[in-house]
């Protein structure tokens, strides 16, 4: 009663579950990041370098500004895509 597609799917699912569970248990325990020196650097001098009180906003707009530029582009692409796909198509080709 299991078609081979289901068996293949179940196999794939269990392999991914195995990977996930094993990597979850060997990563650093929750609440105790083991080498947070990059984030400590940001926490300690985000006020002088970027002038923002909010550490996360200083990371979003100044330390990792290119991510947010990519971010704004993703949203711009999605809006352009949705507007293009839902345009009124006249019968041309």
């Amino acid at each position, binding site marked *: 009663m299991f078609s081979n597609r289901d068996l293949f799917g179940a196999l794939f699912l269990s392999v991914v579950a195995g*990977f996930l569970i*094993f*990597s979850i248990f*060997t*990563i*650093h325990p929750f609440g105790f*990041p*083991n*080498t*947070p*020196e*990059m*984030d*400590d*650097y*940001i926490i300690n001098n985000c006020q002088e370098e970027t002038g923002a009180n909010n550490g996360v906003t200083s990371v979003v707009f*100044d*330390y*990792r*500004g*290119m*991510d947010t*530029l*990519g*971010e704004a*582009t*993703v949203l*711009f*692409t*999605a809006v*352009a*895509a949705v*507007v*293009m*796909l*839902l*345009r*009124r*198509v*006249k*019968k*041309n*080709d």
Partner: protein
Amino acid sequence: MNFLETILIHSPPLIVAIPLLAAFLTPLIGKLNEKVRNGFVILCLLANTSLVFYLATDVLNNGLHTYIFGAKESTLPIVRIFFEVDEIGILMAVISSILSLLVVIYSWSFMKKSTGLSKYYTLILLLTAGMLGMELTGDMFNFFVFLEITSISSCALIAFWTDRGLSIDAAFKYIVISTIGALFVLFAVALLYGQYNALNMAFLAESIPVNFTFIDKIALVVLLAALAMKAGIVPMHMWLPDAYGRAPAAVAVVVVSATLASLYGVLRICFTLYGGIFNSIYVSSQAIGGFIVILAILTMLIGVLMALRQSDFKRLIAFSALAEVGYMFLGVGTRLASATSVTSYTDGSSMVTFPAYSKTALAGSVFHIFNDALDIGLLLLVAGAVYYATKETSMNKLGGLARNMRYTTVFFIIGLLAVSGIPPMNGFASKLIIYESTYQLNPLLSIIAVLSSIMLLAVFVKVFHSVFLGPSQNKFKDTVDVPKSMLISMAVIAGIIVFIGLFPNIVFDNLISPAVDALVDNSEYISSVLGGGV
């Protein structure tokens, strides 16, 4: 420093910023009138391509460019985003910018009668920016963001003909596969961040070989699986023929270069991020290499066998593109699988020695990426031209077009010879290198590779006969050849193909082999960031 010097120093971000700025301006300019917008888009891409060429000449002459965003010099715990432009990255950027420039010129008249063109050009510019960002960035999370931009914009472009159910279905398959791949890339980036608290590729490449934990193995497998899936390897290849076959021809060419950008991602992960591992630990490189070689052979065979059965012109070219992806993975797999002996030193570190042919295998695959982007691009543009002139894609209805579409027939012959690797064209050079090197790994591989090339040639000769030769049909009596803008872009690609075909050593020596040297040992990639960047 004169103007050109500053432009050169700031060129990595500008290469990504110019298409983005053009994409944001296009809807506004589109409100003025059509011609101004088309001209503006072509102008921006022309400027961008010349900037890429200018940076390429500088990177090939005096090495790697590093660019830090937001500060002049890097702090010790690397906090900011780095753009690292080395030879392989700029080579892929050259391919992407050439193809997108020619596609925009091609779609000036190919898409003239369609609606929603402002958004169409915006999405092509965004796709170009996404690809170039993927190829230049040196930061893992930034790579994920640009990967996402590329998949969203190419999915929307695939679904451009919204009145056809098949295009929408192809786009839905593409976006589901791309999103799953991107999410697993994000999961692997989160694993690496959780382990080393760093997102910079050079810092990770240096700290991963120090203690190669099991989490790094999982991250490696997840990254390779996700990026190979997006490059169209066998078990998850079904989206590729649908995407290329059912999208407008101009869009299919840009999606080809987006797929090759994901393939660049596989190279970057294999040889830069985990380069230290594959040079020292003998078993993992041979295991993964063997697995990739098997998948590559399967991709080749499935691509060619399915191409034999197709009756639709574009879908046939799509399956031959799938077969070509098999060649590229074959080269990469041979490089990894050919690790022979491990000499372990006293201080516990070990060095894997690779035979001579393994480096040429990788060179063959990088050269084939460069050639194949042009060959498949030309064939898709020819298919678009045939569709533009006759509004027909299934080959049994087509016939006798050679009489009145003279130029397109010439371009098709050039593309046909190039894809199936026949001497005068560029496909031959790269496929010959791949045959040679894989023969030394295992003769069966290169036999299958040669066989599938021959079958590809047979398929395309059949296509040439049924579409271009044969009795001239009355309903195609008055078909005139395609307008000038389409001919120009096809002519440029054909010219490049013929040039590479006649002088392969020029292109190989000063474009491909520095790229392979940059790939094979990542020490220069790491030292330029951690040794205090520019």
